[in-house]
């Protein structure tokens, strides 16, 4: 090919590339507009809450408008110290309980899930059925028997009832979730690892866990959010206000026979969402492109 035609080829190619880039950009802009609009519906309540958190109590319910007439920034300062114990303590308590729960859930549930998804042992079906059963029982009726149990263990008024079950794979949701993901991983990889002399634990640790990163991230996110927001557990097991978690503290703002503090309550609600958002944003990154199949023919 001559130089001339080579340069035209390059030109044509460049033009195609440019055209593609333009199209991609257009598509991206459209997509962003669409997503932004739809996410407006999704975050409307948050905006409403944000607005409410900046209004005086007397304006929150009377007028529908979102825009606060006056900005009551002190709702935040006031809310932070509204209760006899400040929110610094509540956030710290919540953080401790939540972080331990996330760790406990991810470890213990992935253990159980690995056993169910990958190992052979007798009685597996029965255990699986029992595990699923624990998912189905309405929580409210086991609340009292469970309370009595924990009381007899001497755990009431401590964080143990909130944390220990997490380390004992107490939430079958996560077990089942991980089972479903583990079952999709190619068995050849386990086999290769077996040939490479791996014990079941090593396979779990070096093969299954890294390859299930998206599932683990999902479980961690759920675990975080649900523990952070859990209300019934702390309600029943914590007595001392200084031990309260954030959601429990938030409930103290509303009174049916006294002065409620809605503005500060919404202000604290907004703040209590921030750690969740932060955790979500960071961990959703781990939901990366699955790589499970790429080592296989």
């Amino acid at each position: 090919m001559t130089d001339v035609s080579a340069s035209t080829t390059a030109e044509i190619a460049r033009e195609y590339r440019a055209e593609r880039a333009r199209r991609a950009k257009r598509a991206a802009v459209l997509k962003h507009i669409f997503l932004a609009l739809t996410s407006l519906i999704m975050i409307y309540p948050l905006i409403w809450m944000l607005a409410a958190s900046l209004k005086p109590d007397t304006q929150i319910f009377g007028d529908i408008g979102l825009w606060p007439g006056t900005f009551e920034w002190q709702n935040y300062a006031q809310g932070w110290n509204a209760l006899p114990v400040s929110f610094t303590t509540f956030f710290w308590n919540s953080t401790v309980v939540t972080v331990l729960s996330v760790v406990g859930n991810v470890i213990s549930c992935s253990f159980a899930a690995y056993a169910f998804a990958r190992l052979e042992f007798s009685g597996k079906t029965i255990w699986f059925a029992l595990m699923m059963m624990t998912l189905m029982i309405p929580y409210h009726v086991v609340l009292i028997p469970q309370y009595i149990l924990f009381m007899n263990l001497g755990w009431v008024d401590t964080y143990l009832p909130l944390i220990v079950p997490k380390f004992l794979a107490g939430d079958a949701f996560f077990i089942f979730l991980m089972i479903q993901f583990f079952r999709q991983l190619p068995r050849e990889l386990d086999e290769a690892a077996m040939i490479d002399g791996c014990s079941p634990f090593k396979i779990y640790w070096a093969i299954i866990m890294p390859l299930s990163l998206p599932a683990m991230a999902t479980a961690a996110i759920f675990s975080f959010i649900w523990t952070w927001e859990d209300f019934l557990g702390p309600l029943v097991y914590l007595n001392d206000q200084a031990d309260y978690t954030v959601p429990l503290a938030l409930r103290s703002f509303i009174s049916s026979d006294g002065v409620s503090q809605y503005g500060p309550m919404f202000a604290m609600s907004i703040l209590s969402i921030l750690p969740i958002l932060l955790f979500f944003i960071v961990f959703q990154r781990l939901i990366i492109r699955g790589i499970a199949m790429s080592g296989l023919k």
Partner: protein
Amino acid sequence: QNTQIRHFWWGNPERDKRTFAVIDIYNEKTPGVTVVGETLGFADYFTKLTTQIAGGNMPDVIQQGYGVLFEYIANGAVVPLDEYIGNSLDISKIDQSAIDAGTVDGKFYALSIGANSHMAMYNTRMFEEAGVVPGETFDPYAYTYDELAEFAATIKDATGVPGTDDNTADYQNFSDFVVQKGAMLYNEDGSYGPTQEIVEEYWSTWEKIRNAGGTPPAQETAGLAGVSELSQMGVVTGNTAMTYLWSNQLVGVQSLMEDKLGVATYPNTPDMVPGSVIQPSQFVCLTRDSSDPEAATAYMSAFVNDLEMTKVLGLERGIPSQSEVRAALQPDLTEVEALSVEYFDKIQGSTAALPPPPPSGSNEVEQTFERLAVAVLLEQRSIPEVASDFLRQANAILRRA
């Protein structure tokens, strides 16, 4: 050695601060005894209390309301205080009506920490705009359903906002109405008091007001049935000009509103037979699980009598039942608090006698009423039909309980 007393109440930020302050004062004063405060919002209080009862782990001192107190007494969760009276517990300056209210079958169980009564709260701005002037156009302490129908419609015409909530599904109003009609909510034998006629008449009465145009559309009222969130009350959201609640909610409601509130009694029949009662809003009680009742009752005693402590508590839980305390508080009242004290003064003598404690199941009857009233509002079935259905169900509930 140190005795620990657990005190559990439902609260809000303000009440919690005051109560913890009071506990500090008491702990300071009383070496050897440490009171520990535990608090929750009202919505969660009883859930937690229930689990604690089941676990045999109740706090020594709990806060109780009038409605459910008797279930707790009947089941033995709350124990009598008689043996401590005069020793650790001083009730000498407590109003007799309050003592009576805490007495069941001759035994004294519950120490009142605030009085309560039914109260209508209205938006003074709207009333004014419509030219409805209390004391002139209507008497806030004695007005009839017919008058209500009239001025509610006036307000609607003038302001565009219906003049009153629709109480078809409001059991408090119904229970007043029953007494106004000369009946009792529960008969001596524990059976249900209201007759078919009374129920029908109650609903017809409100139907008239509704038809006169003084209430929001029936469907809107139906949508709120069962909702007790203060923030959703008509007077707060600005959907109506008058809402019917308990007097101890006045302060809370006012704090959610820009406009000033005025107060009134519930409406009455032309005969003006008193229907509302004054009853304690909250008690403190001693529980079965208390390990040191002496110390606990001593704390309870201080909680209602110690002037230093009651000063801190203020009117936050309602109007105190101890005369000295009331007197001591008088100078520091806020505007709304003064309003509610004034209301109590005005209704003295025109209230009904306190009925005996409701039997168990009353709670459920109340819910049933609220539920079925919606059928009336939505005109799904005729009033007589719903009324007889309600009575049938109420009796079934009482039999089962």
